[in-house]
């Protein structure tokens, strides 16, 4: 160890490494949450989707995406592949890559829940590859990559990715679900909304706790440095306010559902906590009060958005659109409210430009998939459950087979 600059280099790199481990763990959280909120007959495919999407995101982002995002290139898109031509003076290149790669997987995970229980596995995985290799990195190049899209996005502020990660996942999911349609039986002949109950509240709750834990890495690591007092103070505030927003989101939703129904709705409380987390993600450095208000509003938005999407016959089994898209937008706007240095115009420009780009490109990709290999399973497969036809094994495969 030669000097204090080395210490800073080490500490900053280590922050990214360790926080990335927690973000990777969120993949398990998404898997458990989605499995818990979907039916047993589709759970194996849910699990399969989640572990393979994470893997594909890692590979696609390593070979293509990271360079399109952080490579030199022009103001629209970066250049090179497999980390070629990229190096940093102040922290490890691979720490940077490892921290960024787990974020891509998060964006892809958001989609998985929305299209669950009726989308074909293969086109879904192809979409994830394209999102991770191209769509996500391009908009990331404009923002965290620093290109500002030729100034159009200058001033846009999104600390850990309310827009850049969560709303991006949400827009891609929305494009997909519009082309996919609702699950059979979700909406009755006369337009009534019917409940399709999930398989396991313990799994859904476990998934939420995992995501909550992982989010400390997601937001705390996005400080990207801890080699100065200011930086570590920053990390500390970020994790404390992240925790606060989640707690407030959960409690607010508990109160709302108790007041409305004399009972507390667990799956909405889980969504409330996650909504608080998404909302605080754009500005977890804006203090505890900001986090508190972001959490309250997040829960209210979800309570309104979930039935709204149902009214529009946009069927979202896990509430991912309400949690990640709606609150991704809210969180990005909130930065302009709570941070005097950030302009509302810049925030809205960022939301709209990135939203449009991702929605349109995703729509095109989904549409191409629909026209070619098709994106929806047959009614028969949907009735039997995707597990039988796409994975070949049920999620709890024992009954009537294992009597030996």
């Amino acid at each position: 160890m030669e000097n204090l600059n080395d210490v800073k280099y080490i500490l900053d790199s280590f922050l990214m490494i360790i926080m990335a481990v927690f973000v990777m763990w969120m993949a398990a959280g998404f898997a458990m949450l989605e499995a818990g909120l979907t039916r047993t007959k589709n759970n194996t495919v849910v699990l399969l989707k989640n572990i393979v999407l994470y893997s594909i995101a890692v590979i696609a982002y390593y070979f293509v995406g990271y360079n399109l995002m952080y490579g030199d290139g022009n103001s629209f898109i970066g250049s090179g592949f497999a980390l070629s031509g990229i190096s940093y003076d102040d922290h490890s290149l691979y720490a940077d890559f490892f921290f960024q790669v787990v974020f891509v997987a998060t964006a892809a995970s958001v989609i998985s829940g929305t299209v669950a229980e009726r989308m074909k596995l293969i086109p879904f995985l192809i979409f994830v590859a394209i999102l991770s290799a191209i769509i996500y990195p391009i908009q990331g190049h404009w923002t965290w990559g620093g290109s500002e899209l030729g100034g159009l996005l200058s001033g846009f502020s999104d600390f850990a990715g309310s827009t850049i990660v969560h709303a991006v996942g949400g827009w891609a999911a929305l494009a997909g679900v519009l082309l996919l349609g609702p699950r059979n039986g979700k909406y009755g002949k006369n337009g009534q909304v019917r409940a399709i109950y999930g398989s396991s509240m313990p799994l859904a709750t476990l998934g939420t706790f995992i995501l909550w834990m992982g989010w400390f890495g997601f937001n705390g690591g996005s400080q990207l440095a801890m080699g100065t007092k200011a930086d570590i103070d920053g990390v500390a505030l970020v994790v404390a306010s992240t925790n606060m927003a989640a707690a407030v989101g959960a409690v607010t939703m508990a109160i709302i559902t108790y007041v409305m129904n004399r009972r507390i709705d667990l799956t909405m409380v889980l969504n409330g906590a996650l909504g608080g987390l998404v909302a605080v993600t754009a500005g977890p450095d804006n203090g505890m009060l900001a986090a508190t208000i972001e959490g309250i509003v997040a829960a209210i938005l979800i309570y309104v958005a979930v039935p709204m999407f149902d009214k529009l016959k946009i069927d979202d089994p896990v509430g991912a659109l309400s949690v990640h898209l709606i609150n991704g937008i809210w969180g990005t706007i909130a930065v302009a409210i709570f941070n005097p240095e950030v302009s509302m115009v810049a925030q809205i420009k960022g939301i709209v430009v990135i939203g449009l780009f991702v929605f349109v490109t995703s729509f095109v990709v989904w549409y191409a998939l629909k026209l070619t290999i098709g994106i929806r399973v047959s009614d028969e497969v949907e009735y039997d459950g995707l597990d039988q036809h796409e994975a070949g094994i049920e999620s709890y495969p024992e009954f009537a087979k294992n009597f030996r």
Partner: protein
Amino acid sequence: MKKVEAIIKPFKLEDVKDGLAEIGITGMTISEVKGYGRQQGHSELYRGAEYVVEFIPKIKLEVVVSADEVDNVVKVITENARTGKIGDGKIFIFDVEKVVRIRTGETDEEAI
């Protein structure tokens, strides 16, 4: 009184139940069973190899009704549970000697 016992495809349960409700049947009992029959079990994939699964999930529906309602009930079940594909299931009819409603002690027709 007769017991009508139907083995049906699970996703048809709701239609059958609604159909029965329409003709005034207000009581029934269901359970999850596995069936073995002409319907080919599907092949499963586990640890890299394929295996045939012979038992298929079904719903067993039991309705006890008075003798004169039986034909009607059978008709409603048949219509609502039919998809036309193999595996739609079977209806079995049994004689019931006596019925008791536990709550009131009422018996037979009054107890259904």
